[in-house]
């Protein structure tokens, strides 16, 4: 009974569906719980801006019909799910002829790229630091240096980002402050553009990595200390194995398992945090687009992005779950432990 069993995959898949259902339902329910409805409120705001709108009631009625808000709530709910499944969220309100989904899918690669790089970096650096901190045989000079890497752990990404922008971009003028690439370069698969994209990504990535790696390091340190006290770790020493083999095959290999679980669970938080980073750096990813949609009252784009982010998060967690049995052979036995 090793690797993936049908039962395990099915269970994880149900969990995956449940997460998406929960998240999307929240996004459906919340606006409807609010006093008033989005359309009336929007028209109200429009009339505030414009001073007066003719036939405001009629406008509200027709918009409600257009968005299907005049139907009973359960019908709306089923319709909503049909749209989510077909990834059909209608037109963007602020950029009218563009479809909401198009706007979202344009932004997605930027976010995915930024986050994947930042997450992989912070997780691997953090886990390495933590493993070394929790190992008795780590050289003493290293033991003394390592804790300094935790300096920025307590600082939220975006505050660190603001300070980086001020220091590195404005005061020192080393790197660009905002955006994903400069207007003067030609988007496409050419070297100047790629270089430009990379220089723009440095500050956001650094602000995420420096502030989040300490969390992984601390967690990994605790796990590694526990493994240090395990019988198999002792036996590995007595067997006369080389320190590096003990460290990797017996130490890190076991200690990293709960850290991977934490990674799967923490992805939601990571993606959340990136919204602020994208906002601070005006990085044209999903988070920034979401912010702009909310500022411009773009109801459809907001819904599309929120659903997409939930979908992406749940999918990454699901994929990690599917990888897990290959890393921990016991998982199909102790699935109830999680």
């Amino acid at each position, binding site marked *: 009974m090793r690797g993936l069993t049908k039962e395990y995959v099915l269970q994880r898949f149900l969990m995956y569906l449940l997460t998406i259902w929960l998240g999307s339902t929240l996004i459906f329910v919340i606006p409807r719980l609010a006093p008033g409805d989005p359309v009336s409120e929007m028209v109200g705001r429009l009339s505030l801006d414009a001073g007066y709108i003719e036939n405001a009631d009629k406008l509200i009625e027709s918009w409600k019909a257009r968005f299907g808000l005049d139907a009973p709530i359960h019908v709306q709910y089923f319709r909503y799910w049909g749209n989510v499944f077909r990834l059909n969220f209608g037109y963007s309100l602020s950029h009218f002829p563009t479809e909401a989904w198009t706007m979202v899918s344009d932004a997605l690669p930027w976010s995915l790229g930024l986050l994947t790089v930042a997450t992989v970096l912070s997780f691997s650096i953090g886990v390495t630091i933590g493993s070394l901190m929790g190992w008795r045989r780590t050289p003493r000079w290293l033991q003394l240096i390592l804790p300094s890497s935790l300096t920025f752990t307590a600082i939220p990404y975006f505050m660190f980002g603001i300070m980086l922008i001020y220091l590195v971009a404005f005061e020192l003028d080393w790197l660009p402050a905002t955006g994903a690439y400069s207007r003067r370069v030609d988007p496409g698969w050419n070297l100047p553009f790629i270089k430009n994209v990379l220089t723009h990504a440095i500050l956001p990535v650094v602000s995420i990595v420096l502030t989040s790696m300490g969390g992984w390091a601390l967690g990994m340190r605790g796990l590694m200390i526990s493994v240090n006290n395990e019988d198999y770790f002792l036996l590995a020493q*007595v067997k006369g194995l080389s320190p590096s083999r003990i460290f990797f095959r017996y130490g890190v290999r076991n200690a990293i398992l709960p850290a991977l679980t934490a990674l799967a*669970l923490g992805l939601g938080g990571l993606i959340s945090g990136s919204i602020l980073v994208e906002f601070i750096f005006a990085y044209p990813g999903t988070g920034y687009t979401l912010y702009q949609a909310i500022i411009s009252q773009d109801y459809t784009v907001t819904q599309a992005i929120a659903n997409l982010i939930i979908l992406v998060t749940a999918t990454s967690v699901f994929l990690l779950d599917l990888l897990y049995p290959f890393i921990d052979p016991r998982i199909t036995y102790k699935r109830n432990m999680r």
Partner: protein
Amino acid sequence: MTVGQRAADETTTPARGWGLNTWDSPWLNFKFLLGVAIVGLILLFGLLGPLFWDTDLAYTGAGPLNKPPVWQEGGLPEHPLGTESNGRDMLAQLILATPSSLKVGFLAAIIGMGIGMVLGSVAGYVGGWWDHVIRTLSDSAVTIPALVVLVVIASYVQMTDTTAMALILAAFAWPGPTRLVRSQILTLRERSYVRMAHLSGAPALEIMFVEMLPNMLPWLAASLTGGISVAILGATGLEVLGLGPTRVPSLGLIINQATTNAALVRGLVWWWLPPIIILMVIFVGFFLMTIGLDEIANPRIRQFSSTRRERTAAGELPAVEHAGLRGGEEEDAALEVDDLHVHYFTPRGEVIAANGVNFSVRKGEILGLVGESGCGKTTVAMAILQVVQAPGRIVQGEVRIEDQDLVSLSGKELREVRWRDLALVPQGAMNSLNPVTPIREQMADAILAHENVGRLEVEARILGLLNDVGLPERVIEIYPHELSGGMKQRDCIAMAIALNPQVIIADEPTSALDVVVQRVVAQTLLEVKERLGVSMVMIGHDMGLQAQLVDRIAVMYAGNLVEVAPVGSAFSEPLHPYTQLLIESIPSIKERKPLNVTEGLTHDLRNPPPGCIFQFRCQHVEQICRERRPELVEREDDHLVACWLYEPERHSLIELEEA
């Protein structure tokens, strides 16, 4: 510590021992206290600020625009931290904003913790269907990106005050505490003191609050401080995006106004930097509290850092003193342990776990090392193997195999001797195999670390070894969790004989197994020994088993060897009073015997008495036993004992001293 004492310790709630006002209370953790102090100072700034500064200055038009702080050119003394683009006084704004940011965090985290405690207790305590639903819900809720949903909520719900925001944040703060409380209850429920409470008929709520809650407290506190900073982060995030309450000043709102007014580009550092600094100080404070509490909750981390500190303070580990006296070197010894002293350096003093232990194991012999729990026999085994765990340390003595002193070897030299000359059959075979690698790899590891052989040969040798201990060949590709306890133990034996070592240390090899499997494992050990002629140290407390397996027996009491004798004479005519008690206590079918061993108390191992270590429990104690320590002396043929009873001259010895 006697068996009885240990059991008693297990059944009383450990948390009750934690006096909050004693100086070694674990709550006096430096990081935790520093964090409390930092957050306290920030809180004081917010609470006492209005008494010293006019907070009305925090509103639009209260002063001139864009004035820098007083220490910069153009700064005004009436606005010490400067003003921003609407003429609002920065100091007044910060005083108003700080407590409101803290309030949101506290409120949201406490509500979340409350929900989490209720749901977690239900899941952990009631279990069944409830557990399933709550666990599934919290597992999937925790993966939903909270801020995304929050942002969507905030865009529809106009949050008027901080309480509304705290309530919404609380909706995302419960899964963490729920999971924590559930897993803590599941763990604690299995502890013996909670079981005792159950058996004694205490009501569930009482058990929850009296037995469990105090033990969960550090975990809960860590989760709370962590939750507070997450909630403050969430609230600040919304405020920075301009989606929080806009009428109440908050640190995030100041940052939002600064960034939307291009304060960064305009160089109005005093506008955006102070709220960030205050927030960072708050986060650092809560972070310190959280990691401090983690250390409080997890003693291993505490111990790890303290042993490291001790090591750094003392410089490198002090060199081991070598024993000058080599008492009775034997010609045909496979392993010699000479004047071995192992001390544990605990915060409450040095525990002497092995006090001048001397013995040798002859070639092809099994030496049994027996004694009650806590007498130091496992410590001796670990010291022979050079794996005494911190805070323990070998302070004196030698362990020789073929005239090579293992204590003085280090690094590579020691690695070469290990397993090739000295192997271990561990105490807990259950946990001694690496759970994530198949048996093949673990056995190959041992061989390949010492010999340069090809893959095919390794494979063939492993199969041969498995066959030697009576395990089927398919075991080679299996993972440890797929083996039974007895099979794991036999696999450990197979691993131990892989390199044909001189000496095998078998540390209670059968203690965790049921009687039938015990027999099989013991037989396997004997067969292996007969075939390979290997020498063995067999550690155990089961006198019956020892009688069947070993050639000579060494009895240990409170860190000292008290008797070493061939198994026949040890059982037929035990000399030391302690050995006599041990042998009397072997249960027999023919007659019922009282267990006499627990009479009297062991002394405090940190502070051994002068004289004989067994004096408090000995029935034959005399004056000299209280004054002078008896040496291990050969009293009969090959039969050594450390007891004054067999010293005819003992009375004159004491008179001599008095004179």
